[in-house]
Structure formats: structure tokens, C-alpha cells
């Protein structure tokens, strides 16, 4: 299944007219504010993630992250009348907000991972870096998306910051679960971008593909027999077997 072909946009000129119309129509008013609010909320939640130092709470925040994403996606689906986006929202809600967090919690419990998150640099520094990243993404995105309509514009900029924040989490957290979480938030940001870029085809396929990817990662942590081979999921333990053993 692909981008749903819309009735009645045949010629170039017609499309341009439609785009312009939408822009003028949506750019002011509630729909824009809500979309903006939700996207901003996502960034906020990402920053909250940075702030966490307990695994369980981090997982909870992740769930929250997914919920906010779901809301924002469904809002996009609503204002752009693109029902297939609801699927994405559903995936976000069901898979990322419920299944994965539960799975992660059970894993943390089963594998007996100690609950503190070892950070590389102090939380405060991480937060500062996060703020800087948000600033950077604004700086990069806002000027270049002048032509794009405001919703997508805001969304893209915020999405980029979510992506960067996700990467930041992956980079500054030592243990695998929190890295998975970082990756998921990164991926949420991409979903946000994908849905924000309205009319983009294959969004659903992509979100599905991504969910598969994440499932792989989570299952991987189980199935790599990590519990058998290593007593912790810290990637640090894997480093004993890195590249060429000296």
C-alpha cells in the first residue's frame, strides 16, 4: 500500500494552488497551535528522558513519549484528513507506548539489571547539551524550510531536535536498555517528521519497518543469550570481546 492517491489533484498548477490554499488555511488557528504544542511536548519529553537516572522511570517517560507521538500523529491525520496515519498512531500507542515498555521492564527485572543508569557525563551537562542541540536544530531547520508550510516547518525543526536528543541519550548512557530507549525516541522523532511532512507516502510502511527494527533490537537483547554469556547488558561487558582480542 502506498501514499493514498487523492482525487482531483491532477496537474502541477492545481497542486500548487492546493498547497498554497492549505498553507493559508492552516497556518493560523487552532490546528497549528495544537500541532505545534504536541511537537513541542515531544521535545520536552525527550529532555525529560535526558533528566532521568532510574531505568524504570526512564521507561515510563519513554511510554509517555510514545503517547505524545501518537497524539501528534493522530492530530496530523485529523487535520490533513489522512486516515492511514491513524495506523501509525495506533502502532505508536500500542507497540511503543505499551508493549515495548512492558517488555523492557520485564527484561530489566528478569536480567536483574541494576536500576541506576550510569551516565557518561553528568545529567546537568547532558541537559545543557540537549538545549544546545535544540537550538542547533532550530538554527539549521527554520531558515531552510521557508518554502514549506508552517506546520511541517515547526514539526521538522522539532523532529530534528528530538532525533538529536535521542542520539544524545544513546551516546551518553552506558547501558543497553537506555540506549534502546534513546534509539526509540530518535525513531519517534523521525516518525514525527514523516507524519509532519504531509502527504508523504509509505509513512505507515516505514513506521512498521521501524517497529520491526526495534522489536529486533529488544528481542536481540534477549536472544543473543546475553543473560547466558554476560551477566549484564551493559555494552561495556561486550567490550571484553571487541574486535581483536589482544
Amino acid at each position, binding site marked *: 500500500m502506498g501514499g493514498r492517491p487523492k482525487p482531483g489533484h491532477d496537474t502541477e498548477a492545481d497542486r500548487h494552488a492546493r498547497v498554497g490554499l492549505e498553507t493559508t488555511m492552516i497556518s493560523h488557528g487552532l490546528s497549528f497551535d495544537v500541532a505545534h504544542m504536541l511537537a513541542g511536548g515531544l521535545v520536552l519529553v525527550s529532555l525529560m528522558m535526558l533528566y532521568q537516572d532510574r531505568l524504570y522511570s526512564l521507561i515510563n517517560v519513554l511510554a509517555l513519549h510514545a503517547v505524545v507521538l501518537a497524539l501528534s500523529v493522530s492530530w496530523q491525520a485529523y487535520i490533513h484528513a489522512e486516515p492511514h496515519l491513524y495506523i501509525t498512531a495506533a502502532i505508536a500507542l500500542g507497540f511503543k507506548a505499551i508493549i515495548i515498555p512492558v517488555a523492557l521492564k520485564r527484561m530489566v527485572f528478569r536480567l536483574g539489571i541494576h536500576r541506576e543508569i550510569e551516565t*557518561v557525563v553528568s545529567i546537568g551537562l547532558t541537559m545543557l547539551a540537549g538545549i544546545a*542541540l535544540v537550538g*542547533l*536544530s532550530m*538554527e*539549521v531547520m527554520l*531558515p*531552510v524550510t521557508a518554502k514549506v508550510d508552517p506546520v511541517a516547518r515547526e514539526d521538522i525543526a522539532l523532529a530534528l531536535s528530538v532525533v*538529536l536528543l535521542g*542520539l*544524545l541519550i*544513546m*551516546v551518553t*548512557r*552506558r547501558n543497553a536498555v537506555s*540506549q534502546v530507549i534513546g534509539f526509540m525516541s530518535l525513531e519517534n522523532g523521525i516518525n514525527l517528521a514523516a507524519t509532519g511532512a504531509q502527504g508523504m507516502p509509505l509513512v505507515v510502511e516505514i513506521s512498521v519497518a521501524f517497529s520491526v527494527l526495534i522489536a529486533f533490537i529488544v528481542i536481540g537483547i534477549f536472544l543473543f543469550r546475553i543473560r547466558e554469556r554476560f551477566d549484564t547488558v551493559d*555494552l*561495556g561487558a*561486550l*567490550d571484553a570481546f*571487541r*574486535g*581483536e582480542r589482544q
Partner: protein
Amino acid sequence: MIVALLLCVTALLALSIAAVPLAAQPAGRPVIYGACLGITSVAALLAVVTIAARPTAVILPLGLPWLGAHFRLDALAAFFLLVVNLGAAAASLYAIGYARHGHAPHRVLPFYPAFLGAMNLVVLAADAYSFLLAWEFMSLASWALVVAQHRDPENIRAGFIYIVMASFGTLALLLGFGLLAGADGGYDFATMRLAHLTPVLATVVLVLTLIGAGSKAGLVPLHVWLPLAHPAAPSHVSALMSGVMTKVAVYAFIRIVFDLLGPPQWWQAVVVLALGGATAALGVLYAILQRDLKRLLAYSTVENIGIIFIGLGLALAFQANHFPAGAALALTAALFHAFNHMLFKSLLFFGAGAVLNATGERNLEHLGGLIHRMPRTAFLFLVGCGAIAALPPLNGFVSEWLTFQAILIRPDLPEWGLKIAVPAAGALLALAAALAAACFVRAFGIGFLGRPRSAAAANAHEVDRFSLAAMGIVAALCLLAGLVPGAMIDLLAPVVRVVTGTGLAAQLSVPWLSIVPNAEAHNSYNGLLIFLFIAAVTWLTVLAIHRFASQSLRRGPAWDCGFPDPRPITQYTADSFAQPIRRVFGTVVFGTHEVVTMPPPGDVSAARIRKIVPDPIWDFLYAPLAGALNWTTQLLNYLQFLTIRRYLSLVFIALILLLIAVALWQ
């Protein structure tokens, strides 16, 4: 003609493929080497007849697709084809007998014909791609031959250093060609001739060519691989590498600098002269300190390359001053010496190989007295020593004499740099010639004369007919080239004309077959006459004395000032023979010194003397390079052992940097 030569090359390459199965059979070796002998002899003949002919060219649909493989046969190429194939033929003939003793033929036979073919191709190629392809293929084939005796780790090391230096040189040539070809890739030589570079760019190309061709020819300080690699190969291959492959490098230099690069600048000549002089002097000094006979020969190759480059530098100087006659003389001297060196260096390596076969020894300290066990080899080796020591009436003297004439022909060069460089080069040349004589007195005197220093030397035996035949032929050619140099000079005239536009006056027409290279100052030399004089005088003296004086003769023990000691250990060793020169020159040039440990009075332990011969070029140029490489790899190697998180941070940092870059760029 050129087609026929290309067919010869094809035949050689096919032969190397056929050698893979043939190497297993005992009959394989004579067949392969015999075939090589035949093919190269034909090629040599073709080359001789085409030197005077008009240039021919052919383009094959090979190599670079849109360019094709250009091949061109002009006088210059023809002459070097003669050098290559003459040497190759001699080596093949020698190898028929020599290789009988060599083990692991399947590591030599397949690469030998390929090596010959590659050298021919280099000379024939007329576009950058074909040239470099043949050039690097030549390196590859010879590398395989160097590591033929692969059980010895020293050979592997030698091969490694060799192939790396060769590839370094190839890259330098590649860059040079890139500059000559220009951005739109005019890779054929015809186009390059038309490209006129600014003096700066031209100098860059010259330097790159000096690196590229010089590293193959063995110019100091790029010579380090040569004394390692040449001796490592089987002796007939050593002869090829020293006698022939270095000449291919000389050809590359002449082709690029004289033919493609256009009119030279005078300071370029200074560079070449300085390098040539340094190479000549240093090479022979290294040579005289060696114990390993083949390594000694390899270093003497370095010396002779230096002499050739002195000639080339002079030619450049005269070219830069628009004095074609002088350039012609200098170039003739250089080419003549290249030819001579091919002859006597092959001869000497054959002799070394014969000694190696007979005794299994390359170390001079374990040889001696071979003149009794292998008289023919000894005589032929002596001829080679005389030739390389530039003794009249042999050929080595003629080319060095010509080089001196070239130095003398034009003292009033305007540039101050040349005013210093030319006489300095002359002095270094003279020094090199004298030291070469000392070096080969030592080589022959320790190796063949005196009393055997080891059982192996005592039980040596004369080598087979093929080897002797090969050595004999080459020795005869040495003498011939020394007796009638005029013929050689006339042969070279068209070659020189290709480069300088003018050649020397025909010499064979001069009465009594003497040569007068420099018309206005009637400096002449007549090898034939001198030879006849010496022969006649010797003959008459012997006749007279045996007729009128006593001819009785009694054998007895050596007198030795009344203390004859039968043990060969009392003889001078190679090291002790070299000691005076080591003290005179080595201390200055290499910082050689001796460490004497005297036991205190009453202590019965032996006193020890240890000679220390450092190699400054290795210590100050190559060792630091290796150290830097080692340090860098060690530093970077940490990147192999990071955690996944750190690798992620690398990606992250790269991303952030690029984003910042874009943010700034907008």
C-alpha cells in the same frame, strides 16, 4: 619492425604462462631459457637494425579504452631494446646451465619471461598508461623473482622493501604523467610533447621523475632497496636487475626529461649532477665495505648509475645552454656507459653466480684461491673487473673517458651553479673511478687469489659450459667495445640525434680506428692501438727474455719475509683489505669507527676489535619514517577497540559538525 618486436613480447608472455606447467618437468628449464634466448636474440637483432631506421608506431585497442595502447619505436627505444635484449639473451644462455642448480624452478620460470617481456614493453610503450602498466608489471615480476628463495626471511624483507619503493616510484611517475597530461587526460606521449609547462611545473615533473626513475635505478638516497633485492634473486636474475632493469629506469628518465619535458632549466642540471656525483661516490664507498660479493656488485651498480647520471646531468646543462654538440657528447658518454655497464655487470654477476654454485658462498671471507679451481671463470671475472675499474683497453675506460671529455668540452658555462657543479662532478667521477679500481682489486684478490679460506672454496669446481659460454661472449663484447669504440659511437649517433638534434661526427672514418669526439680539441683515444702495443710489447718481452735470459723456474714455499705460515688465516681478509680506505673515507662519510677492547694486563682473554659501519642514509631517512609510521598506527589503533557507544559518539559528532557547517554556510 615494431610489430615483430611486439610479437616477441607476446611470445615471452605466452612463454611465462606455458612455464607454469613446464616448470614441473626437468626438461622445462632448458626449454624455457632456450626459448627466451632465441626470442631475445631475435629482438636484439631487430633492435640493432632499427636504430638507424625511421620511427614506427602502432596503436593497439588495449589499455585505456578511449586512448588505446600506443607503441613507438624510435632510435632511443631501439637502443635500449638492444641493451635489454642483449643482456636478457646473455642471462638466458647463462641460466640454461646455471638454473640446473637452482631449486624451486616453479618460482622462477614463470616470472622470468614475463620480466623480460615487461622490460621490453616499458621501452616500447608510448603512452602513460601502457608505460606505467609495463613499468609496474616489471616491478611485480622482478619482485616475484626476488622472493623466489622464500624460506630466507631476509629475502622476504628485501622483496618487501623493494616492492614498496617500486610502488612509491610508480606513484611519483604517475603524478608526473598526470601533470604532463593535464586535466583532460592527454596520456599519449605525442600529446605530452606538445604540452608546455611553466618552469616551476617542469621542475616538479623533473623531481617526480628523479624519484620515480631514480628509485628504480638506485639513485642515492633512493637506493636502499637495491643492495638488498638484487643479491636476493638468483644470479642470472640479479644480472638482469642490475645490468638491464636499471637501464630501463635510465631510459625512463631520458624519455621523460629529455623527450617529453621540453627545454630544461640550468638548475635542473645542477640537481641531476649533484645527485649523480653523490650516487657515484657513495655507491662505490658502500661497495668497497661489503663482504657479500653480490651485494658488493649491487652497490657498484649504484655507483655506475651515478656515473650515467653525471653524463645525463652534463647533457641537461648543455641543453639548457643551447649547446647541442656538448649535449650530444655527454649523452653519448652516458648511453655508452649504460651499454658498457650492462655488459660488465652481467659478466660479474654471472661470475658471482658461478662462485655461488661452485662454493655455495657469497661471503668473500670464505672464498679465496678460486683461480686454481676455476681458472676460466677467474679469467673472465678478471676481465669484468678490469672493465668496471675503467682500465684501458677495455670498454669501461672509454665511456668514462668520454664523460671526462664532456666535462672538458665547455668550461665557459655562464651559470655560477654549473661552474661549481660540473668540476665537482668531475672530481667525484675521478674519485669513483679510482675507488672502483680499489674495490675490484679487493673483490678479485680476496675472492679468487691467495689461499682458500674455507673448505667449500678449496673444493670448488669449474662451472658448466653454458655459463662459461655466456660469460665468454659478454667478456668478448667488453673487449670489443673497448677496442673499436668508434663503431659504438656511430651506432649511438641517431639515438643522440633523437634527443639533442645533433650527433657526434662519424668516428669509424677516423684513421686507425681511433675516436675524436671533440673535433676542435683533437683529444683522441685509440683502444685498438694501445691494445696492440701492450700485446706486442708483452709478447716481445716474453720472447726476448725466454730466448736470451734464463727461463728456468723452481717451485718452493712462499718466502713471506722468511716467516711462511701455511694457515690461510694469516692472509689479509676482505675487511682488513678495506681497512685503510674505511679509515680514510668511511670515518668522514659514514662515521665508521672501531671499538677495541683490550683485556687488562694479566687477563688471558682475547682482545677484540669491532668495526662499526653505520648507514647514515638509512638511519636518518628511513628509520625515522618507519618510526613515524609505527607511531601513527599505534596511535590510530585505539580506534579499533572502542565501545559501541563511543563509535556512536563518532557518528554523532560527525553529524553535529556537518550540521553546524551547514548552519554557518547558509
